[in-house]
């Protein structure tokens, strides 16, 4: 079955990634062993943003077509974005403590991620508070569009605000080949994981819709 072989693929990729992170890649000079967090901190951040983009796509398409599947995509992607965002926000401070000496610093990248995280947590709340009404998908779609448009604005304005606090490791660091390969393996592993989780969450959403519809049908017939 396609689904099972896909799961095996993910399992294998993750295992390879783990091996690469812990057994193969050399330790970075400056930060030492703690730098290895970067190998799943960064992919998690990228997956979160892919997920947020999918929320945008789902929201726009839902308003255009009113097809349930787009609304399901938006909801599921938002959940996953929040999950991966949580990983970023937990691994960030755990990296920061040994390196900067403090768990948290209001520096641009982490602060922007925190704000973005709260925006999409708010999205999930909008969906929650309209859960059994017909309005939740529509209102969620409106918020989903605004949320994604706001993301670059958040990053720009926080950057502006903390221009003197560029403590986060710069983006385009020169990486040794082994590190580069490890990075790409981790990107692949996390991306596949995102797809798998998304597929599973969407299946759950489909069942939820089916159950709700059946309930409705049953109470109509009575």
């Amino acid at each position: 079955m396609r689904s099972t072989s896909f799961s095996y693929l993910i399992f294998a990729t993750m295992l390879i990634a783990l091996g690469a992170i812990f057994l193969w890649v050399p330790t970075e000079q400056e930060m030492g062993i703690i730098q290895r967090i970067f190998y799943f901190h960064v992919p998690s951040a990228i997956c979160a943003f892919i997920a947020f983009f999918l929320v945008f796509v789902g929201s726009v398409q839902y308003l255009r077509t009113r097809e349930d599947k787009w609304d399901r995509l938006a909801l599921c992607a938002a959940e996953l974005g929040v999950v991966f965002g949580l990983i970023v926000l937990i691994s960030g401070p755990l990296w920061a403590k040994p390196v900067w000496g403090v768990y948290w610093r209001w520096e641009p990248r982490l602060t922007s991620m925190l704000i973005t995280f709260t925006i999409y947590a708010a999205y999930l709340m909008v969906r929650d508070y309209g859960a059994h009404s017909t309005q939740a998908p529509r209102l969620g779609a409106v918020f989903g569009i605004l949320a994604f448009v706001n993301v670059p604005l958040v990053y720009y304005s926080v950057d502006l605000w903390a221009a003197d606090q560029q403590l986060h490791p710069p983006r385009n660091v020169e990486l040794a080949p082994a590190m580069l390969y490890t990075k790409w393996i981790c990107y692949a592993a996390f991306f596949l994981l995102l797809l798998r989780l998304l597929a599973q969450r969407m299946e759950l959403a489909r069942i939820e819709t089916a159950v709700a519809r059946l309930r409705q049908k049953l109470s109509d017939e009575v």
Partner: protein
Amino acid sequence: MDNLHFLFAAFAAMWIVLFSYLMRLNRRTGELGRQLEELELKLLEQKGDSPDS
């Protein structure tokens, strides 16, 4: 090495988050699957009772 502890904590946190989410998904899927079957049965029963269909 203290750094190793933090590295472990970060990895552990990641696994915990992902696993909890996965387990929650699996549990809900199971529950809802059961509910779906129940409801489908009920719908069949109802259809059987009413003489029209």
